[in-house]
């Protein structure tokens, strides 16, 4: 197996600590090579290094034997390496065709874009991927899932022989995932393309990849090939010795009464008759893939977005929340999954971020901010959640993903909520912090708070939720009791009985 790509001793440092340490591995030509690891294992960083976005502090990348040095995306494309990023990078003010051929549209001799030919080429590429979309459609009008596919089409349209897919299936439906895998296999067979596929969903990895490399906490553990690729081996290598108790964290207190009930929530084009009930001391998990309308329904519930119809009763009385401000005042708090745009004031220091949601509590009679009381509260949470480095005046933006999530939790908990809604709480967080968050959520529930957990990570849902509400494409597909519920049963509910049999 001649290696199209060899990584030797790759090391990368962010703000003083190693994110990747001495990673060496080989990617065979024409194979589908999966790179797996828990959140925070350094998968995305490694891929960004291969894709030319980051430059490694140590180590060498060899392509077809000779050393290459990449500074930006353009040079990577020249070397035949294309990367599809985890966060969407499409310009939603432009058409599909323009997004696919960003900056390299076919032009005539005056440098004028040949519109017709561009649309035809775009149509051809979309056709190959089995998508019937009008290339002149504005990307802004497409669903998140469709935008992800446009992103992939854009990268594939470059003449590349190494395609990196950074967690591409996170927002695709089962049908779309099947399409994607079929396309990946076709690219490998027909065009001899090498695909590096990053995921932390083991079933997908087993379905598609020829070889699997495992990363843990920035170190390279090993590569499995052929029959060696089994779920248990992979989990063991991903999690290592530290026993990641995947078992269900049972509640320690009796079930409290229903504090919040939502019936028939609807919003045109986003979600239809979403209903659920939240009980004190219990965690209700909502499982579904991105684009299933879970976040949208919650945003409408707390008044951040429009709600067309539906009834919400809270502590016995019917309410209609007009803004997050009113929701927080009533004790209903939402921890957003979009830290960058909705969660934290990145350029501002920790103390500002933490007290931002409960300024009222820290305002003295003379309308001034009681700095001492605020300082103590923030200090308390820094100790309690062990935020590193434990300094008050460093900007939130300079912290790692895990610590940023801790800051967000401090901000939310400071408002001492009665109902805590967490959205993808462990996204982009390293394993250590993930454990603390899981145990914290369970302790919070035991302390009397009604917790609503939104997550697309099935193990996390199964580990924490007392009851699981399954949503798919804007509808509730079923409410399952979590008495040793298995992943298969949940997926069955997601797609409804018949589809799973195929």
């Amino acid at each position, binding site marked *: 197996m001649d290696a199209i790509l060899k990584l030797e001793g790759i090391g990368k440092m962010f703000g003083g600590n190693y994110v990747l340490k001495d990673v060496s591995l080989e990617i065979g030509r024409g194979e589908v090579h999966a790179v797996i690891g828990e959140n925070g294992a350094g998968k995305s960083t490694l891929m960004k290094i291969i894709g030319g976005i980051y430059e490694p502090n140590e180590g060498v990348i060899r392509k077809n034997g000779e050393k290459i040095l990449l500074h*930006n995306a353009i040079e990577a494309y020249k070397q035949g390496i294309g990367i599809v990023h985890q966060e969407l990078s*499409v*310009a939603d003010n432009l058409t599909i065709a323009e997004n696919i051929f960003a900056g390299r549209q076919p032009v005539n001799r005056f440098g004028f874009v040949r519109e017709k030919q561009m649309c035809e080429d775009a149509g051809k590429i979309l056709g190959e991927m089995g998508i019937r979309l009008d290339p002149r459609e504005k990307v802004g009008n497409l669903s998140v899932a469709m935008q992800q596919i446009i992103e992939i089409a854009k990268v594939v349209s470059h003449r590349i022989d190494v395609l990196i897919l950074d967690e591409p299936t996170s927002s695709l439906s089962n049908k779309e995932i099947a399409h994607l895998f079929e396309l990946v296999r076709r690219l490998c067979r027909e065009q001899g393309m090498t695909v590096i596929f990053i995921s932390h969903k083991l079933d997908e990895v087993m379905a598609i990849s020829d070889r699997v490399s495992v990363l843990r906490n920035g170190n390279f553990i090993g590569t499995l090939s052929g029959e060696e690729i089994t779920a248990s081996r992979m989990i063991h290598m991903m999690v290592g010795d530290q026993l990641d108790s995947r078992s269900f964290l049972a509640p320690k207190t009796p079930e409290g009464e229903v504090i919040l009930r939502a019936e028939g929530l609807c919003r045109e084009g986003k979600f239809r008759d979403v209903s659920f009930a939240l009980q004190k001391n219990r965690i209700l998990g909502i499982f579904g893939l991105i684009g299933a309308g879970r976040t949208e329904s919650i945003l409408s519930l707390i008044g951040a977005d429009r709600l067309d119809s539906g009834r919400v009763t809270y502590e016995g009385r019917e309410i209609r929340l007009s803004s997050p401000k009113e929701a927080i005042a009533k004790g209903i708090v939402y921890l957003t999954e979009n830290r960058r745009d909705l969660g934290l004031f990145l350029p501002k220091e920790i103390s500002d971020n933490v007290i931002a949601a409960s300024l009222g509590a820290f305002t003295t009679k003379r309308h001034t901010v009681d700095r001492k009381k605020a300082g103590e509260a923030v200090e308390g949470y820094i100790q309690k959640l062990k935020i590193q480095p434990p300094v008050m005046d460093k900007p939130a933006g300079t912290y790692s993903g895990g610590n940023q999530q801790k800051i967000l939790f401090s901000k939310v908990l400071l408002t001492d909520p009665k109902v805590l809604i967490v959205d993808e709480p462990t996204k982009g967080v390293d394993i250590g912090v993930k454990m603390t968050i899981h145990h914290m959520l369970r302790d919070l529930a035991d302390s009397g708070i009604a917790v609503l957990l939104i997550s697309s990570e099935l193990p996390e849902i199964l580990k924490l939720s007392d009851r699981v509400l399954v949503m798919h494409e804007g509808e509730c597909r079923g409410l399952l009791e979590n008495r040793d519920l298995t992943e298969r049963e949940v997926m069955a509910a997601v797609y409804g009985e018949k589809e799973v049999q195929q």
Partner: protein
Amino acid sequence: MRQKMSSLKNRILCRLDIQASAVVLLIVVISIAMSFVYDGFLSAYNIKAMLMSYVPEGIIALGLTLVIISGGIDLSVAGVMPFTAIVYCMLMKAGVHYLPGMAIVLAAAAAIGAVNNFLRRLLDVHPFIITMAVQLTLKGFNLVVTGAGSISGLPENFMEISQVRILGLKIPLVVFLLLAALWMVLLAKNRFFRKVYFVGGNPKAAELCGINVNRVMYFVFIQSAVLAAVAGIMAVFNYQAANYSYGSNLDTRAITAVVVGGTSMTRGGIGKIGGTIIGLVFIALVYNSFLLSGINTYYQDVITGAFLIGAVLIGERIKYRGKPGKKEDKS
């Protein structure tokens, strides 16, 4: 089927830019009404005079459209226009022929445009601040160089060329129409010009898919300054003189035209040259109607300001149904 229908509706919708069409409707209604008030309103002479009076604003509005689409703003144009007019006259009086003189002045403007972007990146500051500082500096310089008087008595060969008419139109108007057509086609079709939409829409994504964002921003600020220089030169063609007071609040009128035409300052990457020209015609029309109908022209500022706010409100409320702009944090 549903897929097909929505894209068809969509294509119509984005063609029929609500805000620009509302302004076109207003233009038609006002023209009809004015033709009753003053019968010579739709005469060739009046239309020509109306367009002639908005040539400098028009040329500058073309450049500003690209700057605003890319997410920036350029106030230095109000300093560059008189500056180039003055330097151009001084060069000609010093014996430089008007063609090389033109080249020198355009090069100087390009340098100013480059300085705008360089300082914007070096000082990591909003373009509003840097271009305002450059405007103040240039205006001060213009005042000192001309000693607050005006420069005239230009050489004979220039006086002749400046009176030449092409197809019955004066040179400044012809130059504006040519530039408008060129910029419209380039922005719609040319690959490099299209990059401005990417940089405006999603700068990070543009960087990732291989667009040299810095080079695009240099181009945007340079073309804005060069067009301001062209406006300055056209003023000298028009008046055969230069004065420090030219274009004293030209930037306000040009930006109003661009924004009324539908280019958005809260959402990057939205806007068309066609919209800007519609905005321009609208403002020229309002200005002209006041002049001809003899109403107290102080009301004109009130009406123009009110229409600017009204037009953008219509755009915000209808086109985006109040969806908050991605960049609403930026001013």
